[in-house]
């Protein structure tokens, strides 16, 4: 192996490390912004949301916020990464172009439930009508439909100070954090977390680049 090839392969690894660390930074900074935005949405939460099904309240809101805040920067991330890789060597231009085109990461798809509430991810919407419906969700759903008076009472009379004191709001925050740590910033999972998809795309490009420069 010519030493020039060695230099190039080291550049590829340096590029790869910059992108992966950059991917972590991008997802994490977006998550911080998502958390801040979610904090404002907590005011929409009812007692039942917090008490019975915090994930039901948090997940689709986190997904919707993440999608809106991440899509543009993620496209720019891959455009920049692809351009940078292509600039290293002519042999890498094709791989760089594929990266720069984007579309390599599938974000959780959300759809507007049409009732004015936050969009709901497709996977969750279908799950709530399918076999994946959990006992907790069913119980919570039954309570929600059959105990309107409780819901109304909770949302109208319990002020946020009280909810904070009894930790209900924290249940929603924990649910949001769990969603971020798994669906968005997890290392493994099914479907693959977004961060793991970003890393995977860079790793595949790295492997291809190393093969082309051996």
């Amino acid at each position, binding site marked *: *192996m010519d*030493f*020039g090839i*060695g*230099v190039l*392969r*080291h550049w590829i*690894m*340096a590029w*790869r*490390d910059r992108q*992966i*660390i950059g991917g*972590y*930074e991008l997802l*994490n*900074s977006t*998550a*911080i912004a*998502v*958390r801040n935005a979610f904090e404002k949405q907590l005011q929409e939460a009812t007692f039942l949301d917090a008490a019975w099904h915090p994930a039901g309240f948090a997940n689709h809101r986190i997904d919707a916020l993440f999608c809106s805040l991440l899509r543009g920067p993620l496209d720019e991330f891959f455009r920049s990464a692809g351009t940078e890789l292509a600039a290293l060597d002519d042999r890498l231009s094709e791989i760089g172009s594929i990266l720069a085109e984007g579309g390599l990461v599938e974000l959780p798809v959300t759809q507007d439930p049409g009732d004015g509430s936050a969009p709901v991810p497709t996977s969750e919407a279908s799950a709530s009508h399918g076999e994946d419906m959990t006992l907790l969700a069913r119980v919570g759903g039954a309570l929600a439909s059959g105990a309107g008076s409780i819901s109304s009472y909770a949302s109208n009379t319990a002020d946020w100070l009280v909810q904070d004191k009894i930790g209900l709001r924290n249940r929603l925050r924990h649910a949001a*954090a769990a969603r*971020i*740590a798994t669906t*968005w*910033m997890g*290392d493994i999972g099914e479907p693959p977390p977004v961060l793991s998809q970003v*890393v995977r795309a860079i790793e595949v490009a*790295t492997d291809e680049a*190393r093969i082309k420069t051996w």
Partner: protein
Amino acid sequence: MITAALTKLVLQKASGGILDLVQSGALQAFGSTLVDPTSRRTVGYLQARDTLGAAADTAKVVASLGAFANPVTAPFGVAYAAGKTGFAIFDTQRTSHRIEDKLDTVAEGVLRSEKKLEDGLGGLTARSRSTVALQFLDIGINVAGFATLGARLDEIAVRASAIDAGFREFQESQLTLAFTNLKTLARSLDEGWRLSGNAATNRWQSVASEALHLQDQFEARSRGVLTRPDPDYLLADAMLDAVSFANGLRVAALAACNQINAARSAAEDGARVLDSLSGRVGLAELVRPVLAASGSERGTREFSVALAKANEDARPLDRKFRQREANALTRAAPLVSLERRGIRPRAWLEEVRSLTETALVFMPEPERN
């Protein structure tokens, strides 16, 4: 017919202007090869001489290493030589931190003069300075005496034993035996220079053959460490040093026999092996376990801080992986140039060994039309 004068002509001490050019970025170093970044022409080759000989001022050697610490050339892993936290290369952890602080300065390229570094090294223990300097032996073809090679090997073995829990348990294990055999080979290589004629050649051929066997053993050990579900990269680093050491013995022995093609082939093999072992290990691999251990919650500022810190902490080891690969890839680079000029490697290596007053030798590559 090459005269001794010509052999001497292609060797220069590298502690002066050459290193200044590297430090300023006018020349770039990749392993032992120096390149003019403007014309991309190879301008020459570096060759480590001996860092523990009486004439070699260790502080100056380390200062030379520092000269490579510019952001362009991704320098030798001198900062890593100071060890990671809790990694007991040195006498005490306190000493380790003191060295790390000083050499981090070097790695950042902040240090502007050899004198300043020498002053900074004044507080280090002799052993610490030696350990740092030993990292330097991997540059070019191995011509160091056994005292230096043995010290280098001991340093690698100490790191392996400090990290590998299984090592202590099996003191008589294959690994211990392999390190002992490697040390024997280093002694045998050195003794070869005091033999003459066929006796020397036979000795070196035997060294080359045995070194290949040991290189394979350490390769297998390294691969085992690196393919664990939760790899110990510090242990892998010690094992990779052993692979590189064994390969260096092979190349040096074959070059001493004037077997240019075989030496080049052995060097290529070493480069390929190291690339296959560590070429795909980078900052990402080193950062992930540290991040996980930090327990920082994802999506928080705390996570950002932990990521930045893990990234910075991992850089020296990452740099060392790359530097070892670069050294292996360029180990036999001077041989081609020597062959072109009709200089036999053995004569050249003898000349390098005779330059006891310097730790680093530079061989310029003549400009070709």
